[in-house]
């Protein structure tokens, strides 16, 4: 007999996305792991920014960025937002930006002992 499957919906969740310099995602991720924030995802993208000139022909190089997304509880948004801001040096021009999207609901695996609590 099949076990009954249940979806546990999480509410009061936000998605923090940051567009940062290529190579910085690991640093930011480590900074988040230090405070117990897990599950960040990283992918590459092309953003607006400084295009370096290479050689005498002035060949433009694509502005490749790393984009990091992490789901966080709504009550911790400010704290994690500020941590990413500092870890990614976003107070320096050209280093990137960050934004927060509120989510209506989210779902993932939740360990049974947490569900029982």
């Amino acid at each position, binding site marked *: 007999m099949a076990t009954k499957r249940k979806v546990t919906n999480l509410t009061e969740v936000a998605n923090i996305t940051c567009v940062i310099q290529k190579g910085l995602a690991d640093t930011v991720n480590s900074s988040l792991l*230090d405070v117990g924030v897990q599950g960040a995802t990283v992918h590459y993208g092309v*953003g607006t*920014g400084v295009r370096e000139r290479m050689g005498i022909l002035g060949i433009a190089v694509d502005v490749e960025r790393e984009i990091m997304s992490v789901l966080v509880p709504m009550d911790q948004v400010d704290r994690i937002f500020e941590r990413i801001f500092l870890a990614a040096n976003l107070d320096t021009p050209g280093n990137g930006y960050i934004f927060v999207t509120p989510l209506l609901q989210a779902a993932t695996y939740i360990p049974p002992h947490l569900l029982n609590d």
Partner: protein
Amino acid sequence: MSNEHTEEAVLEDKPVVIPNITYTRMLTCILYEGGAEKVLEELHHKGVNEAYYYNVRGNPIGRASLAGDLPEMPKTEVLHAVVSADQADYIYRFIYETFNLNQPGMGVITVNRLIRSLPNVLPADLQYEAVG
């Protein structure tokens, strides 16, 4: 792993003011035919630097693979732009018209409300150059 940019380290040196912009929208655009690079440049000229895109694969709504059963090089791009709420309608319309989103098989555009964001400040002494 330690990180030199912890809140404590920064607080010891000097306090950092973290901008808190709350009145913004995120435009998300799935472009089945690509072309986001050009729009990125146009958005920059309109003062929107908070935009990026990436390539994805998938099946466009209402269109089968052009190469039959063979693998197809994906042209689809996803464009995201963070814009102030009062500019959102204008930028939305600009993207909609640029990509002919009123035609079938061109793409989709959506708008999301954001609760906090940051401007992308570019270095003043360096110019943006579009890829030709």
